[in-house]
């Protein structure tokens, strides 16, 4: 896994346990930045530049991880709702860190979901910039 000295252990653990992709992190931070807005999957997908189905999955995972919740409407709308004050404070720290160190955080998330052995297959790419 790509470790970085700029990522505190707590935040690394948070990312490892609750965030599966950069899109998910950006989605979470977008929800947090606009707590008064209740997002539906299609709108959020537009803001994140990913497919609506992926966004639905992403939002569902955020709810499962205690970071967001739904209101009772149809179609379902989501909003930022960390289950505890500690979690809320942690996400605040993540947001602040992400604004300053986007690349190391993104790399960390990418390496976590990418099996190391993929590097073996990548070695056979003849063009180094691939």
């Amino acid at each position: 896994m790509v470790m970085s000295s700029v990522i505190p252990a707590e935040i690394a653990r948070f990312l490892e346990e609750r965030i599966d992709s950069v899109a998910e992190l950006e989605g979470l931070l977008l929800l947090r930045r606009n707590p008064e807005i209740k997002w539906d999957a299609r709108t959020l997908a537009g803001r994140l530049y990913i497919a609506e189905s992926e966004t639905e999955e992403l939002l569902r995972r955020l709810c499962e991880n205690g970071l967001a919740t739904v209101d009772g409407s149809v179609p379902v709308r989501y909003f930022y709702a960390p289950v505890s004050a500690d979690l809320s404070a942690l996400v605040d720290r993540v947001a602040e860190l992400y604004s300053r160190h986007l690349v190391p955080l993104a790399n960390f998330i990418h390496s976590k979901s990418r099996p190391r052995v993929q590097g073996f297959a990548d070695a056979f790419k003849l063009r180094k910039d691939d």
Partner: protein
Amino acid sequence: MNLMLLGAISMSCLVVGLFFLRAWKKTGDRFFIFFAASFFIEGLNRAALGLTKDPNEELPFFYFVRFSSFLLILVAIILKNTESRRRFRG
């Protein structure tokens, strides 16, 4: 001595092939299927050599099988270098 060596080589090839199979499962990259098949075939090739009364690698069977195992590797490399970037969505 030769039989023991052939057996050991065969077994190592099969186990390494299994590793590549697992790598395919983990990554979804079909590159690893080709490597797995390559090592499986070579493992079986070595076993066949060991089971032959007078092992002779100049027999067409053995060199065709060995070549096909390396051909699989070549195919894997070619495919790896011609695949589009569609796998990554950023």
